[in-house]
């Protein structure tokens, strides 16, 4: 549904995107994460046809971005980070205006999907940030688009509202939509996403299925604390093991992601003993996305 190749974008000489590559497959939920100011909104604006990249190639919903005349030609649903409406229009009027038909039934349906059915006759000028975000989601759904790009759909909402939006996102996926959304709330990504893309230093540093990223398919992550310094040759040897995917050096030891073959602990122990490393603790766990994210952001 989305292919982005080598997207560059700067603002006033400051490089924000420095060769972004992305692949969003049909029917999946793609979580787009990155620190504040990483360029998530910048990327999504480009993908929605609202701003032009300085360089690179994008294909969105089957259309070459450089060839479209109007953002609307992409036929996607887009929720901006800060959805703006005309304050003098009611929620219902807003949706009818966006759908370009007078169809109160459908507009009411959309409003109740996002939990705004009680506010259909209220002017959007009086809406709270969270209500605007809900209306924005309804607006993104107004065209029955196959692809939805949502910029921080859950960020302005209370925990209950967030859960509701995440359920809605899952529901939309069931209905055959493809959804990409950005967020800095990692637990939201963990709950619903199929694929995660992490934006860092202007590139998508990691783009993997969530299961793979969390090591669920590949087995466990081992956390080993060592007495004394970690030797270079120890790291090299560990990396050389066939079951090891990656090794990170941490403050008081190492962290090893493995591929799920049997007797991994034995293999790891073997190397440690061979190198006469003093093991203070040794345990295996499933990493949280938060941890993976922090690792990606800070360690590399």
């Amino acid at each position, binding site marked *: 549904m989305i292919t982005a190749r080598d997207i560059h974008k700067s603002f006033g000489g400051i490089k924000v995107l420095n060769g972004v590559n992305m692949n969003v497959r049909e029917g999946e939920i793609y979580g787009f994460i990155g620190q504040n100011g990483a360029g998530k909104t910048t990327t999504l604006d480009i993908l929605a046809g609202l*701003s032009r990249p300085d360089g690179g190639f994008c294909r969105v919903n089957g259309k070459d971005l450089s060839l479209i005349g109007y953002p609307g030609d992409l036929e996607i649903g887009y929720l901006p980070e800060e959805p703006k409406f005309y304050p003098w*229009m009611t929620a219902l009027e807003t949706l009818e205006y966006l759908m370009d038909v*007078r169809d109160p039934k459908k507009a009411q349906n959309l409003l109740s999907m996002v939990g705004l059915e009680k506010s259909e006759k209220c002017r959007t000028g009086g809406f709270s940030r969270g209500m605007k975000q809900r209306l924005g989601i309804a*607006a993104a759904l107004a065209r029955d688009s196959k692809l939805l790009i949502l910029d921080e759909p859950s960020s302005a909402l209370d925990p209950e509202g967030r859960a509701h939006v995440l359920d809605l996102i899952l529901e939309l996926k069931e209905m055959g939509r493809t959804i990409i959304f950005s967020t800095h709330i990692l637990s939201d990504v963990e709950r619903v996403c199929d694929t995660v893309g992490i934006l860092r230093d202007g590139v998508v540093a990691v783009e993997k299925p969530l299961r793979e990223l969390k090591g669920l398919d590949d087995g466990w992550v081992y956390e080993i604390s060592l007495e004394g310094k970690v030797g270079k040759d120890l790291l090299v040897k560990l990396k050389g093991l066939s079951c090891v995917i990656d090794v990170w050096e941490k403050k008081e030891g190492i962290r090893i992601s493995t591929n799920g073959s049997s007797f991994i602990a034995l293999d790891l122990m073997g190397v440690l003993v061979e190198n006469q490393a003093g093991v203070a603790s040794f345990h295996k766990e499933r990493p949280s996305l938060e941890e993976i994210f922090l690792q990606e952001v800070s360690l590399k």
Partner: protein
Amino acid sequence: MRTSMAKEWAYATRSGRLVVLLGSFLFLAISTPLMYKYILPMILETQLGQVSSEEIAAMMNMGQRESMESYIGDVFEIGSIVVSFSLCGLLAQEISENNLVIPLCSGKRYGEIIGAKILVFGFILGFVQIISTFATYVYSGVLFSFEIDAGPVIISGILQGIYMIFILSCILMWGAIIKRPIPSGFATLATVYGMHFLGSIFNMEKYIPSGLLIEASKMSSGQTLEVTSTILPTIVLIVAITLSAVARMKGLTWNER
């Protein structure tokens, strides 16, 4: 297009723009004859002292025609300012506040957005001009006496309306270029007065928009709409300016910060 026009109409009525425009022009329409009939003679009387009010009235030689000509002069000077600044945010604000992002993503076209504004506010401006010109006609007729036929007065109102639509197109073009409401308003006024100034230097007033107001203040009996020389150039200008606003929109990006 229908929903876009409904949206503009809702804006005009709910934001108070319609009331402001109608109110301002009706105020001019009523106050101008009132001014000439009572207030000015009163001021002159206190200033000149010994001269009687009858003599002053005779001296000023005021009637319906003079009052209406003065009103049309006010339309050019004050009316242009009122229209420029009450509508300066029509496009500029929507761009600068990112109001257009969701409509654009929902499939609205630039031509539709601008076209709806021209149609709805063009209608409103035309309507306001005709109503207030007729109001000043009736009121000045009551205060002085009816010297002018109603037909030319309607024509005068239509010509003023077209002139205001020209201002509207300038507002939209500058809005798309400058993207800030108040500066767009000033740019519009500069364009309007600048064209008038150049027109009078080169003796071309007849062919420029402000020539419509010169034509509008004639109000001679049997006057018809002078289409080719005066209206046509302005209509062509309105279309060209509107199209350039649309073209400018095509070049914009929609991530204002």
